[in-house]
């Protein structure tokens, strides 16, 4: 048995050390392979110790909200914004696995493919594989890997189905909830859940009728409510500024230490 654990892949310590070095050097194939290993062997996260000492003060930003509200499109805009500042960005986009077949249709990155050729962007889709809480079991580990690989901002898109989205609160330094106008009941439901934990609320689809209403409604209850049109990028600089402003009043730790204060 290897000192790291009993999983077959953990027995090849030398191979793992090489993999870890490649990850630290930013090798994309190595990053992808390590994330898969962590997804496929939930007990194997001891391997992360090999990456220790690589904390770089990465910012982890969670994006949540009901399906269709525009999370992926907002994430796409934020990636573009940070890339203009030459910041390396990692994206982890989570979708739900079928509880019947175990299969999943992972389509978040359809909205992000304009970044597929950018060496400074890494996008990974993850299926929940039965894990509850809004993320995949291995999402935190994957964020740790991306931090070690030198990504300075990590955007995490949750599955966005509602009240039991607790994982993102622990993992991210800041949580943005995306709402669309005309989702009256959903907004009511979110008040009890997602909106309570969010630091910033975004009323996306600000171009649609009803946006003003939704905005006014939410502002009666919450301090940080912004309007965006993610399909055009309107409001995104303001959102990025609000994220930065929020983070400046908190000390940013590294992945895994989020929310410790």
């Amino acid at each position, binding site marked *: 048995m290897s000192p790291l654990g009993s999983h077959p*892949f953990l027995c090849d310590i030398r191979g793992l050390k090489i993999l870890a070095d490649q990850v630290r050097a930013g090798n*994309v*194939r190595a990053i*992808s*392979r390590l*994330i*898969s290993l962590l*997804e*496929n062997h939930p007990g194997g996260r001891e391997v992360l110790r090999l990456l220790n000492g690589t904390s770089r003060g990465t910012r982890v930003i969670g994006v949540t909200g009901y399906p269709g509200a525009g999370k992926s499109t907002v994430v796409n805009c934020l990636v573009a914004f940070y890339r203009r500042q030459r910041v390396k960005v990692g994206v982890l986009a989570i979708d739900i*696995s*079928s*509880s019947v*077949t*175990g*299969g*999943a*249709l*992972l*389509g978040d*990155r*359809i909205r992000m*493919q304009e970044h*597929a*050729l950018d060496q400074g962007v*890494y*996008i*990974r*889709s993850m*299926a929940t*594989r*039965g894990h509850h809480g809004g993320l995949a079991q291995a999402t935190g580990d994957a964020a740790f890997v991306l931090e070690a690989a030198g990504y300075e901002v990590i955007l995490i898109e949750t599955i966005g189905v509602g009240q039991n989205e607790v994982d993102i609160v622990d993992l991210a330094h800041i949580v943005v909830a995306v709402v669309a106008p005309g989702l009256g009941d959903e907004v009511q439901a979110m008040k009890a859940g997602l909106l309570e934990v969010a630091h910033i609320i975004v009323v996306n689809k600000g171009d649609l009728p009803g946006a003003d209403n939704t905005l006014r409604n939410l502002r009666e209850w919450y301090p940080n409510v912004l309007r965006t049109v993610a399909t055009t990028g309107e409001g995104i600089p303001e959102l990025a500024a609000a994220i930065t402003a929020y983070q400046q009043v908190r000390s940013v730790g590294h992945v895994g230490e989020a929310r410790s204060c």
Partner: protein
Amino acid sequence: MAVASAHLRILIGKVGLDGHDRGVKLIARALRDAGVEVIYTGLHQMPEQIVNTAIQEDVDAIGLSILSGAHKTLFRRVLELLREQDAEDIALFGGGIIPDEDVTTLTADGVKALFKPGAPMQEIVTFVKGLKRQG
């Protein structure tokens, strides 16, 4: 849960200027229902985007749908990029409107299989399930 195929990851997408997306969506859904994790890229991808995405997503294989007539150029370009990126362990297959003689040449070039209209879905699913890489 279909444990055996639970971690099979397949990229499904469309390359080039080709808006026919009924077939590709059918395939994506059938594979999901068969227990596959399907990463769908949507329309109008360049071969470079497909290959970069496949590497980031660590998929076992790439399945492309082409009804535009540009299949020879596009499949060959993807094969070439996989070679360049040292990613030949990722299999390439596909489907669409592709004449028989082109199926023959492309499979000789290294495309694993091509499915035409009318191919039984079960046959496609069984083929894809055999694409899981080792390790």
